[in-house]
């Protein structure tokens, strides 16, 4: 997995910290985001995700530490850095009394000169062409979220920072936004840094992740690597059941948990998940369903065990 990603660091923080009164909202964060990453910043509410994102986007001044983007110090080269970065913090708030088009024109022109065609193209990508000249106050939350992504598109940033981009969206909206995030990364080569408390989202879109709790970094790395460190549980429906139980019992990397009603619950050691299905099929066992129990939530609970009340 790692081989597909560049080692060029797009965003790096050194000992990044922010203190509000006596409370550290973020403490000594050392993050690294590589070019092409869909990097997910995961943590429970109040963990310090938004504070960190706000520091990266210059909305908050760090109490300590530094931020480097594209190899440049953010505070020394603010203009040069931010002209290549686009962000949405918390929710995409626009000027409600202006049209979608005018919002994009104003916000985009603060980065560079924009053409009408570029704005319309961005609106087309997010499916808002027909509403381009309507006031944003008539838009649903999902439409505003898509408009937020549209403004990210036409300014052609190299790094997009999204703070909980699917919050408040219905399932269809979530799916659309996730699709757009994937598309921005894979087809347009943009690096995405997003925070989320929706754990399933990380599995669906992220390539690398960092886990934060109470302002401190707990883990950082490739999603697949971090998850593969833990055994994974599966429910499988197979036929014939007895033969399958007998065969699986011989495997050292599988631990049977239960077998009843045509369904087997089992735990698989890290790195063997893909072998399981292949092994069963090659031994003439019909696999009717294959359902992983392990979620990022399990991982998250485990990794923050003892340090957080989620």
């Amino acid at each position, binding site marked *: 997995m790692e081989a597909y990603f560049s080692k060029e660091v797009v965003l790096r923080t050194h000992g990044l910290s922010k203190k509000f009164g006596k409370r550290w909202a973020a403490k000594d964060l050392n993050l690294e985001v590589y070019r092409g990453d869909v990097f997910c910043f995961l943590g429970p509410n109040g963990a310090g995700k938004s504070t960190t994102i706000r520091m990266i986007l210059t909305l908050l001044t760090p109490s300590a530490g530094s931020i480097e983007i594209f190899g440049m110090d953010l505070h020394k080269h603010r*203009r040069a850095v931010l*002209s290549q970065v686009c962000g949405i*913090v918390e929710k995409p708030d626009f000027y409600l009394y202006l049209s979608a088009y005018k919002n994009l024109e104003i916000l985009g022109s*603060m980065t560079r000169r924009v053409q009408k065609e570029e704005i319309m193209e961005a609106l087309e990508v997010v499916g808002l062409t027909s509403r381009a000249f309507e006031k944003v106050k008539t838009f649903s939350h999902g439409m505003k979220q898509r408009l937020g992504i549209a403004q990210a598109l036409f300014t052609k940033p190299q790094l997009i920072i999204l703070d909980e981009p699917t919050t408040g969206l219905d399932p269809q909206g979530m799916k659309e936004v996730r699709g757009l995030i994937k598309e921005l990364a894979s087809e347009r080569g943009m690096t995405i840094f997003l925070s989320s408390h929706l754990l399933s989202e990380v599995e669906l879109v992220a390539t690398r992740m960092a886990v934060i709790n109470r302002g401190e970094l707990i883990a950082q790395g490739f999603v697949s690597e971090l998850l593969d460190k833990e055994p994974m549980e599966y429910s499988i429906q197979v036929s014939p059941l007895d033969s399958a139980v007998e065969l699986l019992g011989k495997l050292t990397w599988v631990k049977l948990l239960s077998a009843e009603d045509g369904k087997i619950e089992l735990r698989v050691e890290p790195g063997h998940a893909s072998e399981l299905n292949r092994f069963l099929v090659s031994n003439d066992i019909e696999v009717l369903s294959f359902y992983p129990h392990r979620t990022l939530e399990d991982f998250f609970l485990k990794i923050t065990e003892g340090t957080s009340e989620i």
Partner: protein
Amino acid sequence: MKLFRFETYKIFSRWRTYISFGFIALIVTMTEVVMKLSANEILYRMMRSFQKDFLIFGNVLNGWFITAFVMNSLHIHIPFFITLVAGDIVSSEATSGTVRLLLIRPPSRSKIITAKYLTTLFYTTGLVIFLGLICITLGLLLFGNGDLIMNYQTKFRIVFIPQAEVPLRMLLAFTAAVWSMTVVASLAFLFSTLAENSIGPIIGTMAVVIVFLVVGNFPFDFFRMLSPYLFTTYMVFWQRFLDNPIPWQEIAKSAIILGLHNIGLFLIAFVVFDRKDITS
């Protein structure tokens, strides 16, 4: 310049910006129509105090006199209209959350706050010019032209300005009025950078203006002592351009004091905005 253009576009895209223009048009029209209908009564009251000593011919109740009268009456109302926009221009970005979109763009905070301040001054200037234009146009239409006779009752004297000289005097007076009102705008602007909603800055500015006006006009020695330290004392310096001779020294002093207020208030707003942590 681009930021200034966008800020101007934004404020003129909101209906609340036009409330001020609408109300001014309404108040001035109503005042001047009522004055036209009560012309004889007004004329009688005007002339009562000095008709024993002077013989006055011509159109005394003319458009210029009406303009000076309306300006005198509205110098408390205009600040309120100014605060509607000046008190809102920064705080509304926090209320609506757009401040987060704005401040993560390449232009620096100092450029953004300067553009907003210039827009506030532009709006203030526009509003006072609008007041002047509507007063004079309607005044001249309803009451005609003539020499300007000002009766300064508190100073027990009458000032006579020939018709040919009045337009220039009015231009200077309105320029001074713009200058005065920019202090109100600067104060509201400062409050706007401190707040995250528009109500606070609007009410706060009006409270300061009203308290200062009241304190500055109390006829007691203690309050008279305070008067030179209140910016509202200098805000009526536009009236001095309708005096004879024009007291240039007094005007310069007032203009400088108000200018220093503008600079001070803007600098505080600038520093506050530049260092502000955006947590909303």
